[in-house]
Structures are given as C-alpha cells and as structure tokens.
C-alpha cells in the first residue's frame, strides 16, 4: 500500500484504446458453419474454453485447410467482459493465416501485446491479465482437437502463474537461488502472482492446481531439510562445532559409550551429559557423575581429565568438561 493504491483506480481507464475499440466493435465475432467450411474443402474445428459459471467463456472457430494445415478463416463468440471480448478478437486475428503448429505457439503474452497502443504500456490492468490467458488456452484446445491429441501436450512445463507465464521449475529455482521467504518477494522476482492473483492461494478468481503459498512452503521445507542433512553429514565427517545441540549430545554420548562408560561402570559408577554451552572459544560440556563416581576423589582429577581428553581428541579441541 502506498499513495498510488489509496484509491482503487479506475479499471476501465487503464484499458488501451485498442481494447476499447475492439470491445465496442469486435472484428472477428461470428460463426463458421460446417457447410461453409466444406464449401472451401476445409475442416471445421470448434473449441470452447471457460464457462458462463466461471465468468468468462469463449468459443473459437477454425476453418483449416487439410492439405497445408493453414487456418484460413477464424471467428469467435464470447461471454465475458470487455477485455475478454477484445482478447478473443485479437487472438482470432493472430490465428488467421498461420498453420496449426504456428498457432499453438501464440501465448497470452502475445495476445496482450497485440492489444497495446504503445509497446511499453500494458493493454489492461493487472487483474484483467487472465482474460488473455483464456484466449491462449482455447487455441491449444482447438489444435488438440484438430491433431487428435490432448491440449496439455502442447505445454512443455507446468505453468503456475498463467498471467505472467511462470513455470513451477522457474519458481522453485528462483526461491532457492535468492533464498526468497515471502510471496511478495516471489512476485518481485518473477511477476508471478502480480496479476489476477488466482495462483497465490486457494479462493481467488479461479481454482488452480498449484499455488504459490504451497510452492513456497514446500521449497522452503526442502531447503531446510537439505540444510539439516548437510549438517548431519558434516557431523559424520567430524565437524562437531557446526552440529546442532542434539547432534552434539548424540556425538558425545557415542564417544562416551565407546571409550569411557565401561570404565566408570566397572567401578560402580556412571555419568550423564546435562548440557552443552558453546562460545567462540570453548564448548563446555556439563556432566553429572552418578553412583560411585559421585564424590569419588578422582572424579575431579584423573577421571575428568580422561573424559575431557577423549572428547577433545575424538570431537573437538574446544571441549571443556565441567562436572556439576
């Protein structure tokens, strides 16, 4: 929030003139019938995307030359707001004259760019970006129908944010490399989630398969696990100073079990580790003697020295053992 956001802003004023003109007077709105397509020796493909219950629906008609795969004519019908109609119109225009394979390469970004008056100014405000996404999806659907394949087979990567076309793998990579911790940071780095916001968390404009909140949480969890695993590996390699407290206690117990405890038990005693306090110079291991050791003369001299030197040798030179 800042000065610019104090007023909601006027949605329609942010539209390019092209959007306004095409909404008021779409150029390619209409239908193509089987008979018309047949008369030209062409194949008719009609694909729907979206639904009235979602707030946007588009039907795309392609008349395709079966010899060349060229889309010789195209029309659309649309249930939607101004930007949905204008995007459908421009998308239909972009398809014409292209082969089906070329057409599938048209993305929502191309559609939005084609609606700009000026190359550097977005044609629609952020929350309307998703309207051009539908225009892009319906192309895939039509192409899939024509080629007899699934529309998703044209998608190489899992797109999490359709508006900005950001893929799952990109998001995971950016979160890791830049150690991102918040959704705002993700949006700043990738633009994902900056437009219609559906992909941020469930409950937005449309339901999504992947949400940024989950991707962030999962990636961070993985990063934490990796860090722990790395620390554990380091511990196994003897880097005692960089272990977590729990790992240190385990490591000390292991050494004591291996080299010390048996001698104490022989004399009817034992010991336990109470606490570990690390400072820059020392790692102080607080222990308590049990049984016969408790109060025995050598517990503050010889035995103590033996325990300390074993730990020093096996774990870290910084260790000091302090009986309490």
């Amino acid at each position, binding site marked *: 929030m800042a000065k610019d956001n104090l007023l*909601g802003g006027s*949605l*329609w004023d942010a539209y390019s003139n092209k959007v306004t003109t095409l*909404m*008021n007077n*779409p150029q390619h*709105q209409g*239908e*193509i*019938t*089987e008979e018309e397509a047949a008369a030209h020796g062409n194949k*008719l*493909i*009609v*694909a*729907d*995307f*979206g*639904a*009235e*219950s*979602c*707030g*946007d*629906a*588009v*039907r795309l*008609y392609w008349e395709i030359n079966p010899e060349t795969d060229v889309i010789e004519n195209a029309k659309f*019908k*649309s*249930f*939607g*707001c*101004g930007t*949905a*109609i204008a995007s459908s119109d421009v998308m239909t225009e972009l398809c014409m004259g292209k082969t089906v394979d070329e057409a599938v390469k048209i993305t929502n970004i191309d559609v939005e760019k084609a609606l700009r008056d000026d190359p550097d100014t977005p044609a629609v405000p952020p*929350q*309307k970006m998703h309207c051009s996404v539908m225009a892009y999806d319906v192309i895939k*659907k*039509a192409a899939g*129908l024509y080629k007899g394949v699934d529309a998703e087979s044209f998608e190489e990567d899992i797109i999490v944010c359709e508006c900005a076309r950001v893929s799952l793998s990109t998001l995971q990579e950016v979160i890791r490399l830049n150690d991102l911790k918040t959704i705002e940071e993700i949006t700043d780095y990738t633009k994902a989630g900056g437009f*219609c916001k559906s992909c941020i968390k469930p*409950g*937005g*404009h*449309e*339901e999504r398969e992947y949400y940024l909140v989950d991707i962030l949480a999962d990636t961070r969890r993985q990063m934490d696990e990796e860090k722990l695993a790395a620390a554990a590996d380091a511990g196994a390699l003897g880097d005692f100073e960089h272990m977590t407290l729990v790992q240190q206690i385990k490591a000390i117990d292991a050494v004591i079990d291996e080299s010390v405890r048996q001698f104490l038990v022989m004399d009817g005693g034992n010991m336990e580790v109470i606490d570990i306090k690390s400072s820059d110079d020392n790692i102080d291991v607080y222990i308590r003697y049990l049984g016969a050791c408790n109060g025995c003369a050598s517990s503050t001299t010889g035995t103590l020295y033996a325990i300390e030197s074993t730990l020093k040798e096996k774990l870290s030179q910084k260790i000091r053992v302090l009986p309490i």
Partner: protein
Amino acid sequence: MQVYMDNNATTMTDPKVVEAMLPFYSERYGNPNSLHKFGTSVHLPLSKAIDQVYTGINAAESDDIVFTSCATEANNWVLQSVWIDKVLNSDKNHMVTTEVEHPSILATCKFLEEQGMKVTYLPVNEQGIVEAHTVRSFITDKTALVSIMWANNETGMIFPIQEIGEICKDKGVLFHTDAVQAVGKIPVDMQAVHVDFLSMSAHKFHGPKGVGALYIKDSQQLTPLFHGGEQMGGRRSGTLNVPGIVGMGKALELATQNIEATMALIRSKRDRLEDALLELLDDVMVVGDRNNRTPNTILISVRGVEGEGMLWDLNNALIGASTGSACASEDLEANTVMLAIGADSELAHTGIRLSLSRFTTDEEVDYVIEAFTAAVKRLRAISSSYAKVGPTPGGEAQACDLLYLHDKCD
C-alpha cells in the same frame, strides 16, 4: 442523456441538504465543545439535526443515536465491542449473521473469528432473505449477538426484522441490524421493533458522504470504539462533523417526511422499468418478490451476458449501474447473492443492479429501457451462450466450481 441508476451505491446529495450544510463551513465553523460563542452557537442547529434523526427513525428519548463517520464504523463498533463486552469480559462466544451481509459486517466477523469468536453465517432462501425461524434455531446460550441487515444492498430484499427482534428479545440476545439500505427508503420505526443497535449512513438517502450513525436502544452498555474526548457523551470521540450531522438530519427529514408517497412514486417508476425489461427481453430474471423489496431496486439477471460487459455498454450509453456492488466490478467475482439464492450457476456473473431514487424521472426510465435492451441485443449477438454452431466433439468446456467470496462493498 446521462442517467444515474446506482443509488444503492450512493446518492446525489439533495441540493436542499447542501444548502443546509453550507453555513457550517466558512461561517459557523466553531467547535461545539468550545465554551465561546463560536462553539456554542452551533448547538442549536445540532440539536435540530439530532431531533430530525430521532424523528426519522422514531427513536425514543431514552435511546442514543451516536453520529459516526460512516456505517462501516457503526458496524465495526457493534461487532468489536460486543466481542469485548460479551466474549472477552463475559461468558458468551458466538454470534449469528447472514451470508449476504455487507463486507463491513462479514470482514469484521472474519476478523473476530481469528480472535476466537464463533460465527454462524446463515444462508438466504430463494427469495434472498433469511427466515426468522432459521435465526431462532441457531441461537444458543453462548450467543452474544445476532446481526442481520434490514434490507440487502444488492437485491433490495427486506428481512423480517420485527420477528427476528422478537426472537432475540425472547432469547435475551443482543440484536444489531445494518439498516443502511432501509433507512430513508422504507419506514423504519424503532418503537415498533425490538432492535438493540442499528447502523445507518447519510449518503444512501441523499445526505452527505462520511457521516453515519449508530442507534443504541435505551442507551445501553457498548464499549466505545474510539477513545478520546468527551464528544457524544464519551461514546464516540472526535470533533463533531457539524456540517455532516446537519446534512444528515436534513436529509433524513426530507426522505422520511412523506415516505409513503415518495415510495409509491419511486415504486411506480421501478415497476415500469422492471416490467418493460421482463417483457422486452427473453431469458431474464429479477431476484425477489417486488412487494418485499425496497421500492427502488432491481437485480436483474440476463442470460448469456456477462455483468461487467453489460455495465460497459450501459456506461457507453452514459448510464451508471452496477453488477451488484461497487467494488465487485473491480474484483471480478461471482455475485454472492445470485449464488446464495440458488440461481443457476450460469447466471452467477450476469446480475445487473439498477437502483432508482426520488430524483429519477420518467424520461430517464424510458431511456434506460431502450439502452438496456440495445445492450443486451448487441452482447447476445457476440455471446457464446447464444452461438448456434456447437463445439467439435471433445471441444466442450467444463463449468466452474463457484467461489463464494464476500467482497461486495456498497
């Protein structure tokens, strides 16, 4: 011609109201809390405005009507302070409201839920209202408050406030009503109903923006939301908005003076508009029985025409309408009321609200009929819903899971 058909969002300030307010800007600008003449000289006009508001809703002398900055404040005040008084400092933990309240109620409920309040959101029936017996069945001995609007902003449907009030009285539960869309539009008589708290807003009845009020029955306990000076008897601190309060008094007086006659006038225009649209257009539906609606409101669903697209065409014809509420048009969401009344999901995005006022003329109604039907014709010609050639087998789309989002803002 330019026609304003969005009077449930806000209204034109009546020029008579502006006239009454003007002296209190640059001439009589004293602070009523001051001891000097500048301050004390505004006491008389303020008392007059207070009288006008008490008369406008027939409040008793023993009741309080506390001026606020808006109805949003009044709504927040009641909910947040009942939370403090009855939940934090007593043994209740629950409140009852409806799914179709204004965000100033729903968002506050969500906030209180985060603090630990239990909230029951009652669904509305196909008429867009909740029935009194439904309210009764959800009140428990842990219920602190029932908050149910008097009339809905999107549909204009009037809720059974009298019966709900009786139930709350019976059960010993506090009852608040957001009467923003009722006050000034239909008779509101505080001595004929049992209501503990009532919110209202001047800009919905041709008064100024930025002034509202909370009615508090019998001056009962309600912890203040704003702490500070001793204004409004300590109930709501902040230097009084003198011109605003004067304007609110005048506006309510003008709106309620001959309310039956004014209602009849608005209703006749509204009904003519509604009848014409229903007759001229196929596949349209108006929500709710018109006899139980505020007399100025029509929520009409036009099959195959998306609401915002329709607003666009109406705007091109210089007609201001709404898809159910002012900020919904920013947020692109389905109309909650449409969903709540159980309309076909295809209709969820097709609601257009036309709301008239006592300033709406017959010529304006004629013009809207013409422009509205022309817009529907044009958009249906583009609409996929009315296309004749069907999709290639396998090319059909699936319907959506509709999302219920409570963010309607006027």
